[in-house]
């Protein structure tokens, strides 16, 4: 079965630094998502992306966050100036454009971001 790929698996950064988390969605998927999970807490929606623009974003996704699809394969999440509270596991997900709106999501294995 095709997979969503995320790199790196673990990223350590200093507070205030910029980080870019990378994702390669499944090739024929057109809807892309970022979720995050702070240790011990629930998985939270950050942003959805379709047709080269943000479809929806949560309150967490403030001006420090941005997403981009720089080429035909990558989907990135950038945090401009990381804070300690940004430490979390970040999951990328994608789905096909076919069928129902709530078609099955495919998740990546996650990037563990540690802000020191």
């Amino acid at each position, binding site marked *: 079965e095709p997979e969503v790929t995320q790199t790196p698996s673990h990223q350590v950064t200093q507070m205030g630094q910029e980080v870019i988390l990378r994702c390669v969605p499944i090739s024929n998927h057109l809807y892309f*998502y970022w979720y995050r999970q702070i240790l011990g807490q629930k*998985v939270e929606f950050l942003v959805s992306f379709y047709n080269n623009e943000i479809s929806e974003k949560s309150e967490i996704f403030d001006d420090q966050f941005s997403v981009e699809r720089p080429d035909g394969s990558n989907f990135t999440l950038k945090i401009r100036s990381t804070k300690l509270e940004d430490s979390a596991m970040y999951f990328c997900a994608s789905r096909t454009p076919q069928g129902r709106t709530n078609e099955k*999501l495919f*998740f990546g294995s*996650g990037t563990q971001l540690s802000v020191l």
Partner: protein
Amino acid sequence: AQRVTQPEKLLSVFKGAPVELKCNYSYSGSPELFWYVQYSRQRLQLLLRHISRESIKGFTADLNKGETSFHLKKPFAQEEDSAMYYCALTPVPGGGNKLTFGTGTQLKVEL
């Protein structure tokens, strides 16, 4: 706003025993409910969704709108069922896969 509640952080059962992972939700409209599972060191993956009304790996879940519940059940637990289980909700229609997750229940099946 929608909310998903999974009251148990950890559920420990013996192999062969019945399993019920509880999930309650609150949403003013008509939601779509899912169960996602995360096995050790693996990615989050869809286990089942209420609209499919199917049994996956012996698990079933029925949406009870009166009780706003979507409990996950399996009559006989297997060791390989040990995993983290997340209940999730998305609004219908047009939820766009903005999933709202519960906090998850760690299922441990003991021999």
